[in-house]
């Protein structure tokens, strides 16, 4: 156990290290028995290692990122493989999920939300359930039994009183909703609801039953299932909801939902509701989680941050690939080198495009040095004159 003396602090503060690394240096020094001199040399060693590993000017960071994500990608599960992840909710994982993220698909295969509750609802199971019923979509089969009476041309619904109480919806409301959405006359007595087609028609009767099944009586249509989990947090325990299906904007408005922590795995929904910066954060979190779940957590987060930065640089979410980033490159040759070569060349010829040969790919194609690393540094020979009076350029 070493005390942090002024001398140590002066050395550490004097280094070029970022704050987080400085804290880590303090922490490791405190945790060990070291003399002042040793501590100083530790700090110096850390600084020199840090400076060594920083990105050099003109380093092709994009290429390094592509390799650093691509190589672990070869070890990921290839086929769509669902497994009961957090709270028994199926989530797409592995390579399919990674592809989905960098392709910026409009809707993910398995949309889900993690809904946090505010203080009044987070610690009480009953209260948490109230929120659940406002989120999970309630359809008729969850409320009671449906039968068709062909003789009287009637659809009969026997509602379960207990479920009605639990989900806080009355038989009257159910009857009204049916009347409004199907446009038929509904008779309701107690927990029994009856209705039928205006004209006796067997086909219409069956059709009504089909339509009845689709009606959402309560909750959000997109959310098919909600799972409650009690989880340990810093200050005790709280209930957290996991949903199958997502409607991020709607959920944030629901009473009892903590709109400052609730998240969604659909980057487009996050983008629409919270903006481009939040979408960037979500891309990083989701890609990192996907890699971590496959045991590839040692991929440096900076690579994923670079990917997310590029995807969100234009203020919207762009995919990586010929419909997004690579397809918007200025250079014809660079685009043609990526995918669908002939189409790009043909279009460019039709529009009379000019290639300035500014990028990497196009210069490789024409056999010129690329403007990266030593390729972008011009050396100018200069020599001191013999009498040392000046320099000659």
């Amino acid at each position, binding site marked *: 156990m070493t005390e942090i003396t002024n001398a140590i602090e002066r050395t550490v503060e004097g280094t070029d290290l970022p704050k987080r690394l400085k804290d880590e240096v303090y922490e490791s020094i405190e945790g060990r028995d070291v003399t002042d001199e040793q501590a100083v040399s530790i700090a110096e060693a850390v600084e020199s290692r840090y400076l060594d590993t920083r990105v050099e000017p003109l380093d092709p960071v994009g290429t390094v990122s592509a390799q650093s994500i691509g190589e672990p990608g070869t070890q990921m599960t290839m086929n769509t493989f669902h497994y009961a992840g957090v709270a028994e909710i199926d989530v797409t994982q592995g390579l399919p999920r990674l592809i989905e993220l960098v392709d910026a698909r409009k809707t993910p295969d398995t949309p889900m939300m993690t809904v946090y509750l505010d203080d009044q609802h987070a610690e009480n199971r009953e209260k948490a359930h109230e929120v659940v019923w406002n989120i999970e979509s309630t359809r008729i089969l969850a409320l009671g039994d449906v039968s068709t009476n062909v003789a009287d041309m009637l659809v009969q619904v026997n509602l379960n009183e207990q479920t009605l109480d639990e989900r806080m919806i009355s038989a009257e409301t159910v009857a009204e909703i049916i009347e409004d959405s199907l446009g038929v006359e509904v008779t309701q007595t107690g927990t029994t609801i009856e209705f039928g087609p205006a004209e006796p028609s067997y086909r219409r009767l069956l059709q009504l039953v089909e339509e009845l099944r689709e009606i959402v009586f309560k909750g959000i249509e997109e959310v098919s299932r909600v799972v409650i989990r009690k989880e340990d947090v810093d200050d005790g325990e709280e209930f957290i909801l996991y949903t199958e299906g997502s409607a991020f904007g709607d959920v944030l408005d629901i009473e009892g939902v903590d709109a400052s922590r609730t998240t969604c795995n659909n980057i487009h929904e996050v983008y629409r509701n919270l903006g481009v910066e939040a979408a960037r*954060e979500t891309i990083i979190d989701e890609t990192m989680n996907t890699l971590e779940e496959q045991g590839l957590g040692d991929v440096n987060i900076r690579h994923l941050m670079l990917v997310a930065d590029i995807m969100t640089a234009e203020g919207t979410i762009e995919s990586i690939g010929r419909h997004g980033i690579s397809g918007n490159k200025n250079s014809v040759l660079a685009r043609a080198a990526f995918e669908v070569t002939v189409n790009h060349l043909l279009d460019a010829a039709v529009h009379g495009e000019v290639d300035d040969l500014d990028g990497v790919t196009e210069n490789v194609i024409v056999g010129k040095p690329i403007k990266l690393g030593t390729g972008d540094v011009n050396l100018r020979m200069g020599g001191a004159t013999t009498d040392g009076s000046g320099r000659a350029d």
Partner: protein
Amino acid sequence: MVEVSQHTLVPEHRLIDDDEIDALLAEYDISRTDLPKIKRTDPALPDEAATGDVVRIERDSRTTDRAVVHRLVIE
């Protein structure tokens, strides 16, 4: 409507004045359009933001303490 800026995923967005913009562009030797963009309709933008303004975004960085980035408001 929910308060977008309160969400943990949303970093602070602040409009900067012309002097700060000039200093920024001079520091990196770039023009305004070289900055990353943000749509004027972005929910996280301050209401008074207009096209052509520059916002300073202070992120809670994963690799360093705080990361400051700038975006140009477009459309």
